[in-house]
């Protein structure tokens, strides 16, 4: 664990906490964008260039903008007057800790863990592309189909509203 890792981890955790606790929704969205960028940096530290850049491109470039758009189109960006901490926060904290323990235990007891320790493998973009087009072609196609279906569904929702208005 290097100093760089701790800096990136601090950036991710800090901005994630800010995204949950800030009063102003737009500030929350912007700190969420910082979280996404931090995750991209974490990928880069693991020598996963492609995943890191794709993370920044998709999440900072598209998802964050989408969230901002949704906030601006649906409600005023005025800050909430009262505290936004919900009364059941203790329950939430407990469940989060439980999930963390369970998934952490599962990862630590996994058989794969010794295999991936040591020097991280470096994959070039070409290798990733080859694998996607040969071994993982079916998942890729399924994801493509799913996204197309979602796209068509969104268009249909938008169209019906227009017909009703006329």
């Amino acid at each position, binding site marked *: 664990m290097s100093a760089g890792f701790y800096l990136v981890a601090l950036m991710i955790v800090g901005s994630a906490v800010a995204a949950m606790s800030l009063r102003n929704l737009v500030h929350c969205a912007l700190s969420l964008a910082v979280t996404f960028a931090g995750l991209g940096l974490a990928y880069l530290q693991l020598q996963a260039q492609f995943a890191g850049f794709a993370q920044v491109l998709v999440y900072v470039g598209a998802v964050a903008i989408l969230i*901002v758009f949704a906030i601006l189109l649906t409600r005023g960006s005025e800050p909430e007057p009262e505290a936004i901490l919900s009364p059941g926060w203790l329950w939430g904290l407990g469940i989060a800790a439980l999930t963390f323990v369970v998934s952490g235990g599962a990862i630590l007891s996994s058989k794969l863990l010794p295999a991936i320790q040591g020097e991280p493998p470096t994959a070039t973009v070409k290798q990733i592309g080859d694998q996607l087009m040969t071994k993982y072609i079916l998942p890729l196609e399924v994801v493509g189909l799913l996204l197309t279906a979602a796209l068509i569904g969104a268009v249909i929702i938008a169209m019906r509203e227009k017909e009703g208005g006329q």
Partner: protein
Amino acid sequence: MKHWLVGFAPAAVQPWIAALISVAAILGVFAGLFALTTLLERKGLGRMQNRYGPNRVGPFGLFQPLADGVKSLTKEDIVPRSADAVVHFLAPLVLVVPVFLGLAVLPVGRNMAAVDLDAGVLFFFAVGAATELSVFMAGWSSRNKYSLLGAMRALAQMISYELPLILSSVAVIMVAGSLSATEIVQAQSGYWGILPRWHVLTPWGFAGFVLFMIGAAAESNRSPFDLPEGESEIIAGYYIEYSGFKFALFFLGEYIGMFAISGLGITLFLGGWTAPLSFLEWVPSWIWFFAKLLALICVFIWVRGTLPRLRMDQLMNFAWKFMLPLALINIFTAGLWRFMPPGWVRWAVCALLVVGPYVLLGRALFQGRKYGARTYRFADT
């Protein structure tokens, strides 16, 4: 030359010195080009509009950029009282820093890329994503209706035109078989006779280049796509509440963004630093890159002086109904070009695949619309 300079330093600090020299070169050269371009643009636009342009400072107004710089440095920095101070302050930085980062992967000459990344083109688009956020931050934090309108326009436009931009570069990446900017340039080296093997000289490459440059004009908010800052409609768009040096930073960011995306266009389609004719190879490679860059900038200025601004619905229709289908078909054409045997059949089929959809789609979109002489409701009576 960099290696020669680095050779003087002790071995321990050599990597640091090398990185520092690359960064200084990028900052110095492109900021100088920015000063040159502002002058060129004002002079060129002045010439097109039958006026002089700046001609007071220095011979032929040559020192105008210097005077502008001093002016923006000494101006008062005004932040509106109800503005969101932190976001308002951060927005220009979020614009300028990524834009300079994008320049780092462009090979400006033989062995002259500051960082040669395996996924260079992807890196370029990834850092470009931050500029959209910056535009939103500037527009929203100013607490001004005009600036918010400008930011919304900018976001809609940038998201729409990013698709054709990326899809047209996907065709190049497919044919070159690499995401690295230097390898894409390498794939275009060599000559057919005296003509270079640039991608723009193939049917799919030409279509891709035109789509790319239209998308680039829209991404850098250049006229005719300058709706986000339309002076006559929403005054100055998203940076309306910025003054002094922050305004200058926005200005700088926009121009550097234009250089960066033109540089990517040169890398992808115009053969990067390779010479345009085989007997001109003796000219240093970086001269070719900057000559091509200046030529593209002149085209941008020319287009700005010529075309009127689009309307919002025209802008969206053009992106989604015309450019996106053409870009998708262009990917298919590029694949066909890659796997067909060389010869005139390949040329004919690919050219047909480029021209056919263009004509059919253009005709189809104009169906049912009547365009006649413009009528005025009040002025004629």
